[in-house]
């Protein structure tokens, strides 16, 4: 009962304060973060609202990424758009092509005379969303990168050292086979296979995904991911599938349920899944390490690329309101806010300062492995192959790659035929995108 009483008092207080603040400019922020992530977003907005009195950011959870984008598109066309909308990274090229709709962040910051230092941001995070000459288009928000999780119990059962993860793919294969021999149901399963096994495998081994610097140099590009190393790698996974050393657990994040249920020894998955995985298996039973690499392709891994979503600013609002948006962007990038976001959610911080602050607080000592993501991203200065991807109609292309990979896992095609076909079909989608956006 007291809880209700308190909450109604709180509600009344909110009403009163809302009435008292009629002069505030409201900034609409539509996002796709449900669950505890949504709570973290609300906390950010609340923090910003408390830090000043001119603007009030209203975060609105709009459902899945697709639902959020749908709502924003419909709203923009009806001139009812929010100021800020969260869009998944694969939508980047299409958002860029929508020139009349988006307000690039670098320009927003310049117009609002808000101080903005590109060097403060972590390279691959910033690079993924900027132009070739380093101008930031959308604000990185929830970024993650694939890392290796392993189940310590299953390793112990197999007579392996539970605290020593594999560093290369052949090692992982051997260990996974031992785990299977000791009774595990599944050796290894990847999450978001197109992102982890094709896109990130490429960056990690410094292989191009597409021509013209992975699409950063223009829209007239062709896909390149059917190279020999990746054909060999995918074929190896397919062969592993025969004895459950490799198990396919579905598209996107679906396979994590297998790992969470304690079935799999290894899982390559988003660093953003850390909190959920630790909750399901128990923090002391999971290890987090860098992704394995193939020593016959590269001597030392390059760096990983990110995934996740960014905040795009939409056009069509009065300049005064954009000042508030710019201030909110600065607030989001500030060190304490980023450090908190990083620690609570498992997403990577977008600035180096936030990573350092987290280190200093001793957070990584308490939660070992949470620094792996940043380490992977900053392992080496990004090359043209590992800066990021700028691919038109990327959503559809990923669907194509998913489909073709599934045909490999089910044994319908070999890796070479499937990847060649994926590249061919993907190139057609790229041509259509290019024709539409000339």
């Amino acid at each position, binding site marked *: 009962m007291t*809880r209700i009483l308190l*909450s109604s008092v709180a509600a009344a207080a909110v009403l009163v304060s809302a009435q008292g603040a009629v002069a505030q400019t409201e900034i609409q922020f539509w996002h796709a973060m449900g*669950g505890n992530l949504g709570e973290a977003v609300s906390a950010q907005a609340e923090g910003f609202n408390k830090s000043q009195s001119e603007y009030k950011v209203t975060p609105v*959870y709009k459902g899945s990424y697709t*639902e959020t984008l749908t*709502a924003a598109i419909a709203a923009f066309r*009806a001139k009812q758009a929010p100021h800020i909308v969260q869009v998944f990274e694969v939508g980047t090229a299409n958002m860029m092509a929508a020139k009349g709709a988006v307000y690039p962040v670098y320009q927003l910051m310049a117009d609002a005379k808000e101080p903005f230092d590109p060097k403060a941001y972590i390279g691959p995070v910033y690079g993924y969303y900027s132009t070739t000459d380093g101008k930031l288009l959308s604000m990185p928000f929830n970024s993650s990168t694939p890392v290796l999780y392993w189940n310590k119990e299953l390793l112990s059962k197999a007579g392996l050292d539970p605290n020593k993860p594999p560093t290369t793919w052949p090692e992982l294969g051997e260990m996974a086979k031992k785990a299977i021999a000791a009774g595990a149901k599944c050796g290894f399963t990847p999450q978001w296979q197109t992102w982890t096994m094709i896109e990130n495998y490429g960056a990690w081994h410094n292989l191009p995904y597409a021509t013209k610097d992975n699409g950063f140099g223009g829209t007239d590009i062709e896909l390149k991911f059917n190279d020999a190393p990746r054909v060999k790698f995918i074929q190896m996974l397919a062969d592993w599938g025969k004895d459950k050393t490799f198990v396919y657990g579905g598209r996107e994040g679906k396979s994590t349920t297998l790992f969470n249920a304690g079935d799999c020894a290894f899982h390559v998955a988003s660093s953003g899944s850390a909190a959920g995985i630790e909750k399901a298996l128990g923090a002391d039973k999971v290890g987090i390490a860098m992704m394995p690499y193939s020593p016959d392709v590269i001597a030392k891994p390059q760096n990983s690329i990110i995934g996740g979503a960014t905040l795009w600013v939409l056009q069509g609002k009065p300049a005064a309101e954009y000042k508030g948006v710019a201030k909110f962007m600065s607030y989001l990038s500030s060190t304490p806010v980023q450090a908190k976001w990083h620690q609570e959610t498992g997403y990577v911080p977008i600035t180096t300062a936030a990573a350092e602050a987290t280190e200093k607080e001793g957070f990584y000592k308490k939660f070992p492995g949470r620094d792996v993501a940043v380490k992977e991203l900053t392992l080496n200065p990004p090359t043209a192959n590992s800066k990021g991807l700028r691919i038109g109609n990327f959503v559809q292309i990923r669907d194509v790659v998913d489909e073709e990979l599934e045909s490999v896992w089910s044994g319908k095609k070999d890796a070479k035929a499937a990847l060649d076909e994926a590249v061919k079909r993907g190139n057609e989608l790229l041509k259509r995108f290019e024709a539409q956006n000339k």
Partner: protein
Amino acid sequence: MVENRPWVTFLSHFVLIIGLIVIAFPVWMTFVASTHDQETMLRSPVPIWPGPYLLENYWTVLTEGYRNRPGTVPLYITLTNSMIMALGVAIGKIFISIIAAFAIVYFRFPFRMAFFWAIFVTLMLPVEVRIVPTYGVVAGLGMLDSYSGLIVPLIASATATFLFRQFFLSVPDELTEAARVDGASPMRFFWDILLPMSRTSIAALFVIQFIYGWNQYLWPLLITTKESFYTVVMAVSRQANVVDSVPSWNLLMAMAMLAMLPPVLVVVFMQRQFVRGLVEVEK
């Protein structure tokens, strides 16, 4: 029953019980899931008998929503909104349809058939296939984040008009004749004779349209940005597919139970009138 054949009766019960199990099992499991805590529901196999958290879970979703997370509102708010929306859609549809059907059946006037066809082609065409332009219209009329925005676009469908037309056509002409001889005005005839006769049709349509309104998902999702206008179905389904996290099945299923309860009550309690209404329309 015409005659008594024990094996047929037995067979009937047997088939019905199988049907019953298939139909009821998902609902039963939903209920069971809503009475446990989250940890139990993440472990396989999940229990098939109810646990001790019934009151706690339902209390939580009703007063706080889904773990009190943003984007979810206490369920009593979304339930109220769904109720308003479903009633609005049902009553609005019945109202505009019955008078339109009355006009089309009982009057001869220029463009009558044009009107009829204009209404008729909208029969059953869902809002999903024209969602962007419809959103544009609603936004242009300033109806985003409002009950009228939730309700009015959805009453633009012809099912009810069509069923009333069918029913009116089956009403004997003698009644109209008698009314005209008595010098009753058309509206008098409508109120005193036609409307009371349509009671069961109205009841049947009320059930259909109430459920149609209650079960909407994509439309409320798009046009509401204020939590005070969220509906319950949208609240349930958007929590089922959350990026980068595992759902709390227990609370989700408690929400699902509450979301299906009102329409189920409507169907169960109005079943008799519903069936009778259908029989009359079908005649």
